[in-house]
């Protein structure tokens, strides 16, 4: 009911410690932005993982005349018989969804298409350099190892390459990015909590006369602490709002870039973005309020 009174107390408190308030808001904003970015990267990467897991295929390259590997040199190039039995066996495997044979001409064409923007590479290669191969689509991508092992040592098989190995390397990079962001965020959040503690302590000290009188005339603890708690909460809220801006920027600049690299049509939904923003803001407000509360318990004896 005395909202006006409480609000004016908060305003006075925030203005009196303006430099500290700015420091707190900045720290909170940075830490929440990093936290949010970490969460977004996490969601994006797991979405892309899911996307690629469904589409991942194994490519089994067959031996040709020019294959340099030891296995191929010992057994010679793949014969029609090798190829047919391999195809039949692959089709019989329950883990395999479909098998497609790509002959050297088709492989060469595919190669030209993929690297059309690197003319030098295309020119340095000729038909026959890309061995004929089987594209194997898996029913369950997690079972790729079993398929890989069963065909690895067959005559005529040069090597088995899995898209997953390549993608995993990139995903590891993003995981690293995510953890770096989250770790810095945690450190920053800890710093923010300490800063808030200090700000509230200053605030409590500069208002000790008022709080002393409030205590004396029998104001309830809640009423005495409320302006300080709200002061912390407002710092957290403003920091959170600023951080939301950074989070939105992360979504539209960084994540869209990542998607371009991966040609994956997995865009994070607005809902996911909003939930990350919501979590960051709530985290900021909670952290600041709790830090204020703990500080008050030490410095504002009621």
């Amino acid at each position: 009911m005395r909202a006006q009174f409480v609000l004016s107390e908060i305003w006075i408190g925030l203005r009196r410690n303006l430099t500290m308030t700015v420091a707190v808001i900045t720290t909170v904003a940075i830490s929440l932005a990093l936290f949010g970015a970490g969460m977004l990267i996490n969601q994006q990467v797991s979405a892309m993982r899911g996307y690629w897991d469904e589409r991942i295929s194994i490519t089994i390259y067959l031996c040709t005349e020019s294959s340099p590997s030891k296995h191929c040199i010992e057994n010679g190039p793949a014969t029609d018989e090798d190829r047919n039995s391999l195809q039949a066996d692959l089709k019989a495997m329950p883990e395999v969804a479909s098998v497609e044979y790509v002959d050297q001409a088709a492989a060469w064409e595919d190669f030209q298409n993929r690297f059309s923007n690197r003319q030098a590479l295309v020119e340095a290669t000729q038909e026959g350099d890309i061995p004929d191969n089987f594209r194997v689509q898996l029913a369950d991508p997690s079972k790729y190892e079993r398929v890989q092992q069963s065909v690895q040592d067959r005559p005529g098989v040069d090597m088995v390459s899995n898209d997953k190995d390549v993608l995993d390397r990139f995903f590891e990079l993003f995981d690293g990015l995510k953890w770096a962001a989250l770790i810095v965020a945690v450190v920053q959040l800890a710093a923010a909590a300490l800063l808030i503690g200090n700000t509230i302590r200053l605030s409590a000290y500069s208002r000790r006369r008022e709080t002393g009188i409030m205590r004396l005339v029998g104001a309830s603890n809640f009423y005495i602490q409320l302006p300080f708690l709200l002061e912390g909460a407002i710092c957290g809220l403003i920091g959170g709002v600023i951080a939301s801006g950074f989070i939105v920027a992360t979504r539209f600049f960084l994540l869209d870039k990542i998607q371009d690299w991966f040609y994956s049509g997995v865009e994070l939904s607005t809902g996911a973005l909003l939930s990350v923003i919501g979590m960051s803001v709530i985290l900021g407000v909670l952290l600041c309020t709790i830090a204020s509360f703990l500080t008050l318990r030490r410095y504002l004896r009621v």
Partner: protein
Amino acid sequence: MIQFENVTKVYPTQKRPALNGVSVDVDKGEFVFLVGPSGSGKSTFLRLILKEEKPTKGRVHVAGKDLARLSNWKVPHLRRRIGCVFQDFRLLPNKNVFENVAFALEVIGKPRRFIRKVVPEVVELVGLEGKGDRMPDELSGGEQQRVAIARAFVNRPQILLADEPTGNIDPATSIGIMKVLDRINRTGTTVVMATHDAAIVDSMRKRVIELEDGEVIRDQSRGVYGQAY
């Protein structure tokens, strides 16, 4: 109204007790002087009434409540029934007279209409009519103490505690302050006043409790300050 039963208070950092086996009974509507040299335990006595301190031994009852059984979150409600006045006034320098008095009601959540009604009444009761808009630094010491009394009394407490209220005020002005306290006492409020001021104690002829080294050495109705000082 206030009962001390064999109360001993030892502060953690001190060996000598601040109060030692004090038993005192103050009835409703009484006016009591608490006298004694510095360090005799007067302030401790007052702080125990407010439950700012807990007794090491013994019991304190205030307004029918055993303070040892009063949970911490109920302490504010106890304090709403006790007004407090200090030697250093403790006014808020950035608020005028009305606002200083109103502050005491605002922070316990009284409605604005009620505050607008009672604050001018109390300001008038302490003899500051027409000065409600003044800031504390525009007032004399005596007037500032009247503001502090108005603030202590505005919530109509059952008990008024005054810790050396005339300590910073010249003798002539002190008489005015005592008249205000006497007026408040006549409304039925119990007043406990700790003081060094022999002239005031002698002129009022009220009950005198004398403390020395934490013990009650004299409890006399219609008493004087005593020869020793």
